[in-house]
């Protein structure tokens, strides 16, 4: 027989359990009902609202970016010179006129050993393929790319001339070593997602990807990249 003192405790414990069950039931039912009872127009309205919010946040971001820019570019003369120099070197690196260093990916495209009769037409890589790879890499957030030591700049041409592929005017041959500076994981998954491995496997090429913490890609070594272009004078 239980002692008299325990009885209130037991009653309280049981009613606490009941109350808990009740509240949980109530809550989970309500949570479900809320998502169910929305029809498409309400969802659309919500979407509209969220998009509005998104736009507002974006304008906020650009506002703060502007502010940050002003902070980073003080009107003080000696400082502003330094800032300008830094900006210039950053732009040079991005534009391919300076060496770039950082974490990234080395992609090697090489021939897989293959029987002679399988070779020929099917086993060549065209400029299209390389352009596609480069494009995807830039799309995946690459900051700089070089192929066999030739930096890819905004005006670099990759094209077939005869049976060879030329970058600008330099011939590049297999194996292609593509060095990419960027987030190695993102770059690698972008390559895998696009199915380049399978794609190149069809033409008997193998892609080897190596993630590195430090990659140096050279500067663009060509001259006269910009010949027919001049900055516009303000007010002219």
């Amino acid at each position, binding site marked *: 027989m*239980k002692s008299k003192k*325990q*009885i*209130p405790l*037991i*009653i*309280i*414990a*049981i*009613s*606490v*359990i*009941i*109350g*808990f*069950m*009740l*509240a*949980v*039931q*109530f*809550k*989970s*039912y309500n*949570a*479900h009902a809320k998502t169910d009872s929305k029809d498409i127009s309400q969802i659309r309205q919500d979407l509209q609202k969220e998009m509005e919010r998104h736009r507002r946040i974006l304008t906020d971001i650009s506002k703060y970016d502007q502010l940050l820019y002003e902070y980073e570019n003080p009107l003080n003369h000696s400082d502003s010179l330094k800032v300008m120099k830094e900006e210039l070197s950053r732009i040079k690196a991005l534009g391919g006129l300076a060496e770039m260093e950082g974490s990234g990916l080395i992609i090697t495209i090489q021939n897989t050993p293959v029987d002679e009769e399988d070779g020929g037409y099917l086993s060549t890589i065209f400029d299209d393929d390389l352009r596609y790879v480069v494009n995807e890499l830039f799309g995946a957030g690459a900051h700089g790319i070089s192929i066999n030591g030739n930096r890819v700049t905004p005006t670099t041409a990759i094209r077939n001339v005869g049976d060879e592929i030329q970058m600008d005017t330099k011939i590049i041959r297999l194996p292609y070593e593509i060095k990419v500076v960027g987030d190695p994981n993102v770059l690698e998954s972008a390559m895998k997602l696009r199915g380049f491995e399978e794609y190149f496997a069809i033409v008997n090429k193998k892609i080897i990807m190596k993630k590195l913490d430090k990659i140096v890609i050279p500067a663009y070594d060509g001259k006269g990249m910009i010949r027919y272009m001049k900055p516009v004078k303000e007010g002219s």
Partner: protein
Amino acid sequence: MWLPIIGLIIGVFLGFSSEITVPVEYRSYLSIAVLAALDTIFGGIRSYLENVFDIKVFMSGFFFNTLLAAGLAFLGVYMGIDLYLAAIFAFGVRLFNNLAVIRRIMIGRWFNDDTYRK
């Protein structure tokens, strides 16, 4: 008399402040268990007012009724019969019976009139 109500309030508070939710497929079981538990607690109050309250009966009733109700619902799902209706019906009727008895007893006590008791 007030203990169950205090306990209920504490329990509801705990339930709302916790982040637990029940998956959709188990919700019918929980609802029927809640019904059984409610029935038990009203039965407990009634027996307390009638001075026949026994903690052993109360406790066993709570667990047994709750599990039986959930079990019936579970069985019903597998048999293709809405067996949980039986539980809802039984507990619903008992709930109202218990409430009616509690009401009569309370009214009798309030007016000091014994004719309200059965």
